[in-house]
């Protein structure tokens, strides 16, 4: 049987996104740490796994993939019958609805959220100064996105429907980081968003991902 490998770092949000999916699907995998501090992700060896020199990268026997959201999509389909059902199979319509909210995470939520994660969570760790103007701009953008989420989550328990899917899972890494910063207020001030955040961050599979950071 082909060995499944994840190359990445437990503190990388994109790596965490993939790990969350693998834990939800109960897929056995080997974690191969990539030393970002030592620039390992830019080495010739690693570039053959991810030509953009980013984490994570994924291998299943000879099959290789990069881009966390493409990998989770593949894993969720390939192991459709294992662990949590993270898709909405059954019709083109339900799959399209899922895909829509995955795109919203990627193109509306992530740009603003990841800039805030960098300014508020990572820069302090590296001893760099936070840029208040960037924070203000992106908090305003994220607030507008969360207004749309607030309306959507009043209609259904999760973003795409009443069950937890990849669309919700993809948000976990950035949300977890932001909950430990001043941006937490953006989630707390919106009741449906707040309830959704509490729910998805309490999932056992997500706790396993967080536990990896402590090792």
């Amino acid at each position, binding site marked *: 049987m082909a060995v499944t490998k994840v190359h990445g770092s437990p503190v990388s949000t994109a790596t965490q996104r993939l790990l969350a999916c693998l834990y939800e699907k109960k897929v056995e995998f080997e974690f191969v740490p990539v030393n970002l501090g030592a620039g390992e992700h830019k080495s010739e060896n690693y570039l053959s796994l991810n*030509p*953009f020199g980013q984490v994570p990268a994924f291998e299943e026997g000879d*099959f290789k*993939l*990069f*881009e*966390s*959201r*493409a*990998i989770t*999509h*593949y894993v969720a*389909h*390939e192991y459709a019958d294992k662990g949590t059902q993270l898709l909405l199979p059954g*019709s*083109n*319509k339900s*799959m*399209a*609805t899922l*895909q*829509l909210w*995955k*795109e*919203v995470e*990627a*193109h*509306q939520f992530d*740009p603003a959220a990841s800039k805030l994660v960098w300014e508020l969570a990572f820069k302090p760790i590296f001893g760099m100064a936070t840029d208040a103007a960037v924070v203000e701009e992106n908090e305003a953008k994220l607030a507008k*996105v969360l207004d*749309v989420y607030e*309306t*959507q989550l009043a209609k259904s328990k999760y973003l795409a429907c009443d069950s937890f899917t990849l669309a919700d899972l993809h948000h976990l890494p950035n949300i977890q980081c932001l909950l430990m910063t001043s941006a937490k207020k953006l989630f707390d001030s919106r009741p449906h968003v707040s309830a959704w955040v509490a729910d998805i961050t309490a999932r056992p599979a997500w706790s396993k991902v967080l536990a990896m950071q402590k090792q």
Partner: protein
Amino acid sequence: MATPVKVYGPPLSTAVSRVLACLLEKDVQFQLIPINMSKGEHKNPDFLKIQPFGQVPAFQDESISLFESRSICRYICEKYPDKGNKGLYGTNPLAKASIDQWLEAEGQSFNPPSSVLVFQLAFAPRMKIKQDQTAINQNEEKLSKVLDVYEKRLGESQFLAGDDFSLADLSHLPNTHYLANAAGRGELFTSKKNVGRWWGEISNRDSWKKVVEMQKQRT
């Protein structure tokens, strides 16, 4: 006979043209409903019902309302697998995974810097908005690095995801077209041998030529 699907938005919008290119590749009949963005029609309550972010495109067929151009494209390919270009989104899971990988690369690595450049170089002057030279410089550098990755990849395979044209290549058409034709940045692509070859091939596809025609008619 099936009712034509509806696409809302101006063909000049890069995201709208992405969907139009896909519909033309798949030979799916559509009706294009104009949205006058300079009059703020995309922020009307009626439009916000089908696109809550107030952006274009929006899409409807008899089953569903959708937004986000890349999810609309995937839906069209999944719903009409036997129409038009059958391999556009792959015909097996591994091919599809590779296409998804490069679609994500387009969305995450290519789109951000190229969109800034399209706005700054092609649209801002026409809208009498002052250009931000720092943003232009930073994003040219970012885009150049992404194209270095593409240059290597396109030396290994004919198209991004493999040896057939796919949604992953198609997704690059709108921004690259403006950069090459309205922003004077064609050299970013043509100065690289494999990227230049690839751009020449994908921009010459009948589907894309039709989209460009539609953009010219609605100026």
